[in-house]
């Protein structure tokens, strides 16, 4: 081999080496993003016979460890909200879940796990927060506003675990004696789950004395399952054509009375959301379904009860500083858009026999607004300064 040949050969080897190095380095990773999974916010309000409870996040909402969820109470007939969050005696960075019934005085509050805490302490009160009993559920509560429910007889249901691996637990003895009732994978294989095409479990409640679950379904049906004699039965209504096609997810199950419930659900059309409401007065044997409310790509900010049989939806329209508030008062009623609550409204409380109140957050300040009698504007009613302990969770 001549000197020139050797040099050329070496050049070829070097070039091959560099190509071999370069191509893997130049290859970009292709990554497809996950499909949109509408998150249901925890901020909400619930009513009991003693008053109204609400939970809102405060602090620096862009920093999870400096976001602290507050627990607020407005007694029946009262005019001033009180912060009862000290009763949780733990960091509320993961959020609070409220379980209540409008026919009972009790509220159960669950602290969602965060950081190294991987279970949920529970506190319950029957006297508007003057005294509390404790419990816990292991593992921690699911990231859904309706992951706690209890029956008039005192039985409690909880959704625990992460999305996609949710479990349903039931407790018979004072919020510390939980055992597994069902897992998502088992439910998906059950007859009711198969009829629905079960995708997720999003809410829990009671229909009469029977445990009920609100689920996500691939089929065009509102995924309400009821436990009858050890079998999960799909009792939710099929959807009319006006809702189009797409997976259906139950976001909230709101108890009205022992046999009555209102259900808020959503239909996903490739990232565009249509909401609907359904009511039953006979533990799920028959239903009435509302017309759809098209939210497009708006993010949900808060859901909850609006009066005895109504539901509200607070959503965030892009390009506007103030959220949208839609309310449906009951079966047969249309969705109505109310005057937009003030900027920063985290949730709305429909206090029995009172005008709605908007709880608006700005850092460490909570301002409560009341809707005027003519429902045309919101007036500032109360200002709460909350001493957020920034950095305390780090």
């Amino acid at each position, binding site marked *: 081999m001549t000197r020139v040949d050797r*040099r050329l050969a*070496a*050049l070829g080897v*070097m*070039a091959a*080496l*560099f190509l071999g*190095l*370069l191509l*893997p*380095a*130049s290859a970009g990773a292709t990554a497809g993003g996950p499909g949109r999974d509408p998150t249901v916010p925890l901020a909400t309000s619930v009513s009991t016979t003693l008053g109204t409870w609400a939970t809102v996040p*405060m602090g620096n909402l862009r920093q999870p460890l400096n976001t*602290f*969820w*507050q627990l607020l109470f407005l007694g029946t007939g009262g005019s001033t909200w009180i*912060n009862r*969050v*000290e*009763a*949780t*005696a*733990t*960091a*509320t*960075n*993961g959020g609070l879940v409220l379980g209540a019934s409008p026919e009972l005085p009790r509220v159960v509050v669950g*602290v969602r*796990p*965060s*950081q*190294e*805490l*991987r*279970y949920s*302490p529970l506190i319950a009160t029957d006297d508007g927060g003057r005294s*509390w009993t*404790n*419990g*816990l559920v*292991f593992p921690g509560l699911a990231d859904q506003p309706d992951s706690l429910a209890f029956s008039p007889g005192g039985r409690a249901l909880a959704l625990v675990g992460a999305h996609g691996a949710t479990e349903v637990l039931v407790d018979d003895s004072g919020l*510390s004696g939980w055992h597994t009732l069902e897992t998502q994978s088992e439910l998906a294989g059950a007859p009711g789950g198969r009829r629905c095409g079960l995708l997720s479990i999003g809410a829990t409640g009671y229909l009469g004395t029977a445990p009920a679950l609100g689920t996500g379904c691939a089929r065009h049906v509102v995924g309400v399952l009821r436990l009858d004699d050890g079998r999960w039965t799909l009792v939710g209504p099929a959807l009319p054509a006006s809702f189009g096609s797409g997976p259906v997810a139950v976001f909230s199950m709101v108890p009205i009375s022992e046999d009555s419930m209102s259900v808020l659900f959503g239909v996903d059309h490739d990232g565009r959301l249509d909401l609907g409401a359904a009511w039953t007065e006979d533990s799920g044997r028959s239903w009435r379904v509302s017309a759809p409310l098209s939210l497009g790509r708006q993010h949900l900010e808060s859901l909850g009860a609006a009066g005895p049989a109504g539901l509200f939806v607070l959503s965030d329209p892009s390009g506007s500083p103030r959220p949208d508030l839609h309310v449906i008062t009951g079966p047969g009623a249309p969705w109505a858009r109310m005057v937009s609550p003030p900027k920063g409204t985290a949730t709305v409380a429909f206090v029995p026999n009172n005008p709605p109140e908007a709880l608006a957050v700005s850092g*460490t300040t909570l301002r409560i607004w009341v809707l005027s009698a003519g429902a045309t504007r919101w007036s500032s009613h109360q200002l709460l300064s*909350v*001493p*957020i*302990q920034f950095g*305390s*969770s*780090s």
Partner: protein
Amino acid sequence: MPGMSTGLQPNNPTIVSAFHAELVRQGLVVLLILVVLGIAWNFLRTAQLRHGSSGNEPSGAFGPVIAGTEPVARRLLRVSFGLVWIFDGLLQAQASMPLGMAPQVIQPAAAASPGWVQHLDNAMATIWSYHPIAAPAAAVWIQVGIGLWLLVAPRGNWSRLAGLASVVWGLVVWVFGEAFGGIFAPGLTWLFGAPGAVLFYCVAGGLVALPERAWATKRLARLLVSAMGLFFIGMAVLQAWPGRGFWQGRLPRHAPGTLTGMVDQMAGTPQPHVLASLVAAFASFDAAHGWAVNLFVVVFLAATGSAMVSLRPRLVLGATIVAVVVCLADWVFVEDLGFMGGVGTDPNSMVPMCLVLVAGYLALVRPAQQDTTVVALPSLSRWTVWWERLRASPTYALRSVAALGAVGIVLVGALPVAGAAADTNADPILAQATTGQMQTTDGQAPPFQLTDQEGRRVSLADLRGKAVALTFLDPVCTSDCPLIAQYFRLADGVLGASSRRVELVAIDANPRFTSPNYLQAFDREEGMGRVPNWLYLTGSKKQLERVWHEYGITADEEPAGAMIAHSEFAFVIDPSGRVRDVFGTDPGPASEATQSSFSVLLADTIHGVLEPK
């Protein structure tokens, strides 16, 4: 990646002062070695004088003798890289090295590389993080030692061994510290040191390690110059490759091009203002004229490489001069001298690259003239030959003693870190840096009688005869308490067989959640059920408040959704019931290194009270 960082600030005073103290201590050992060798040299010299040494190297009488002068190219490599290794060793003594090396040098070097490279570098970073005193001190002495070795051993086997040591250590640094020079990561460029500065140290070391007869002909020189030429051509191809962001000074939406972004980053490192301005100015220039800058670089690399490959001395000379000028310009304006910022470990690639280029040219135009004559005396053993040579030649003896000294310096660094690397537990100094100094005491531990997680009554008196490590934990804590429980669990492992004589005890620090159910949930969450000598105690709020008070613990309810704020201390109680040590348990950054360190500190303290006084 786990293990990469201690989480402590690089300028932590506890670590910095401990590091410098260790360097001083090891420096005294080095001094001792030099004194011993000095005495040995004295004895040798006496022996030489007694035997009437002429002071001249005998010609061929006692084995292979290398006549003539050292090849100038070899001398250049040996001396210059000797000095560079010493400089690099001194850089390793910077205050930020113990805590800054892993997160600011090793981790970023591997960040864009494939997982297996990161895994390798993580192993080194973990050793460094776990042993933040031994590791950087080792780097100081090993590199200073290698540098001195190259300088004091100019010829013969000692010199070749020095070159070999340079190769071995260079490879260690290239693989574990430079992530193979970033050759597996995107953005590879000659401008920023590809394929890794220390690879040139390995090349130089390898050349020094060659037998001197290899320098006698031009073959080695041609090989070296051709290889450098091909390297430059390859780098030109890489630099010219489209789609890598080097042809653009600015990308769409005002994002900087690849080179501009890198230089911008260098301009932001802590350094004298003048230098920062120069580098920033070049970044601006490249942002505006990225295409022209890259074209210049590509043409320069290709032309220089081609000239070298031609092996024509005049072309090679011209290419070498141009290359040195451009390399030095790159060293200032792009590489920013390489050693700024507090964690710079070397002057980057341009300086060693220039030295190899110049050495290659010198080897090409001035090959060595050598005459090696061997006279064998069949009746003498190798050791006898060596000893006779030591006695006969003061020069050889001095160089041997000096080389031994250099080897000793390398070992002063290498041996402690080898021992440390074999220890999977972190140095307790990290825990001390986080929690502060331990308080030694000797007072009777306040008694208590509480209920454990299974509902059984437990008192401190029940634990008499065992050492007790006592702390206070909130069962619904979201941050520190779970980590402290893990420290205790890890410490139990470190205690080994001694754990049978130890009880690890936590007392509930939450006034609202006092039911044993919470302790069980905490234990389940943290895996403490697997620790047989673990007790988690609670009681009524009143009982707990009394115990907190007697141990000086506060537990305050905080407003607005914050968790209980309570004191974080551990008390080590001896088997007779006396508190012997108290120290803070604040987990600090709670990195793997600090966790391991705390467990060692706790275990060592417990061992201390288990030993009879």
